[in-house]
């Protein structure tokens, strides 16, 4: 039983990492209507940016900020240079999925000769273990949970209380209408790519820190986990993605405790398939902050 309690503690960390990534992904999708399959590779690129800074002597916390900045700029440029022109050309959503998958493939393989196949680690002392019953987490893991909580609250505040957030929701609901109502949708979309890109970059560094060691192949792993959390919660719904992250993070850790750990991801995805059959719109469809108002 202790193992399950401990796994629950680890689940808190896992779901924090997934939540940061999945919320960024799902906002990107919800507002710009773009399923960006290169998201995982932007994450891993940002993780490597932080890695090289870390090797150059900077702390990982600095690396996190740099990774977020890198992710923001990278995502922004990706949209401006590639996705936006394709969308303007009238490429269907399905076409955009294929384009972004091709981009994902290219980023991973351009990165490969630079970073190599082999796993690397940040030079970071995770701090001492803080125990609470059977739950034992390091200082860094608490910080990760803290970052996730702060970010989730910040996103809630952004969407609910700020003009930008309201403009985002309006754009998500109906871009044409939003534009006609005087919302500068182009600037809103730029802002969305910057904000979600920053979340993506930050999530990459956090995920890499959380994994202790990471390799180029993790980009695809990240993506699949993020997709699972986002789809589970109802894609495009930030609060749904949070719930999806909680479920995927917890199920992964608890099933590793309950069954053979080699299947832990399979179990999480089994739940995803079940949701697709029973509630294909996702758990929280059309109720989240980005849902059409009225």
């Amino acid at each position: 039983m202790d193992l399950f309690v401990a796994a629950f503690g680890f689940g808190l960390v896992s779901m924090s990492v997934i939540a940061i990534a999945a919320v960024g992904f799902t906002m990107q999708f919800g507002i710009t209507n773009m399923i960006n399959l290169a998201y995982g590779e932007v994450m891993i690129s940002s993780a490597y940016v932080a890695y090289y800074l870390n090797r150059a002597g900077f702390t990982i916390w600095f690396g996190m900020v740099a990774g977020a900045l890198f992710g923001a700029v990278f995502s922004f440029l990706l949209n401006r240079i590639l996705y936006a022109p394709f969308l303007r050309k009238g490429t269907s959503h399905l076409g955009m999925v294929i384009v972004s998958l091709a981009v994902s493939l290219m980023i991973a393989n351009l990165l490969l000769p630079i970073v190599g196949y082999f796993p690397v680690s940040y030079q970071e002392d995770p701090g001492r273990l803080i125990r609470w019953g059977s739950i034992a987490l390091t200082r860094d893991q608490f910080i990760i949970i803290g970052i996730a909580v702060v970010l989730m609250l910040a996103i809630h505040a952004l969407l609910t209380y700020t003009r930008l957030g309201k403009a985002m929701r309006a754009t998500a609901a109906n871009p044409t209408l939003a534009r006609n109502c005087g919302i500068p949708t182009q600037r809103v979309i730029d802002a969305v790519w910057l904000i979600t890109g920053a979340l993506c970059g930050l999530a990459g560094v956090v995920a890499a820190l959380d994994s202790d060691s990471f390799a180029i192949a993790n980009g695809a792993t990240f993506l699949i986990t993020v997709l699972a959390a986002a789809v589970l919660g109802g894609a495009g719904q930030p609060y749904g993605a949070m719930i999806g992250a909680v479920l995927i993070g917890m199920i992964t850790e608890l099933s590793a405790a309950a069954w053979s750990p080699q299947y832990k991801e399979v179990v999480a995805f089994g739940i995803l398939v079940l949701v697709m059959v029973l509630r294909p719109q996702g758990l929280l469809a059309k109720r989240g902050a980005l849902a059409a108002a009225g």
Partner: protein
Amino acid sequence: MLAATELAPAAERPMLVASDIHRHFEGLHAVDGTSIDVPAGKITGLIGPNGAGKSTLLAVLAGTLPATSGTIVFDGEDVTSSPAYKRARHGLVRTFQLPSEFARLTVLENLLVAAPKNRGDTLLGALRGRSYWIEDERRLVQQARALLKRFGMSAKESEYAGTMSGGQKRLIEIMRALMLGPRLLLLDEPMSGVHPKIVLEIQHYLEDLRAEGLTILMVEHELHMVERLCDTVVVMAQGKVIGSGTMSSLRRQREIVDAYLVG
């Protein structure tokens, strides 16, 4: 113009009877307890302000949106639970408010694809090869060409539908619906975004179709058009029917004028 209700023989069964239709979107009552009869062999207009639920009602009648509750009887048959494609096959066919041509099919193919009873339109039929279905295909090509001729689009048959003008796309859509041999045609603003010259053409075509006995229910904004074309008019506001009758009888009803005809 005589009131439609006075013309209709009492014994004649309406083509479609929808009772107490509700359609809710996450708390929004787009259609809120609407009942409507569509008399056979007539053109019925469906009017109302923006957001009244007209298009939603049309979609619910066609089955492209499921009703939250209510019953729909089409030509004596309860179709409430049958999916849109089955209703279409039974002759309850709709068109769309936005252009909805099959862009990368030619104009002729847009018509052919809608035709039922083609032996080559099943997997097994297709696998048996051209000789198995070519007779059907030839017959349908003739039928489609006749329609194209009637609607003045013969010259365009081999063009991709996506390259046509807005008005031509409307015509394609109406012809496509006609290929199904409908008993009731649900038209969603067939004149919107169409060049005035073609508006007139469409009007004539619809009159001809009525003369041939086709029943039509159309959502339309343009009141002059409704007045000219429709035998009966149903007015909706906020998801409910607030009145029906001929245009002239409606003009006499104070609240309807307030709700829509003026405002």
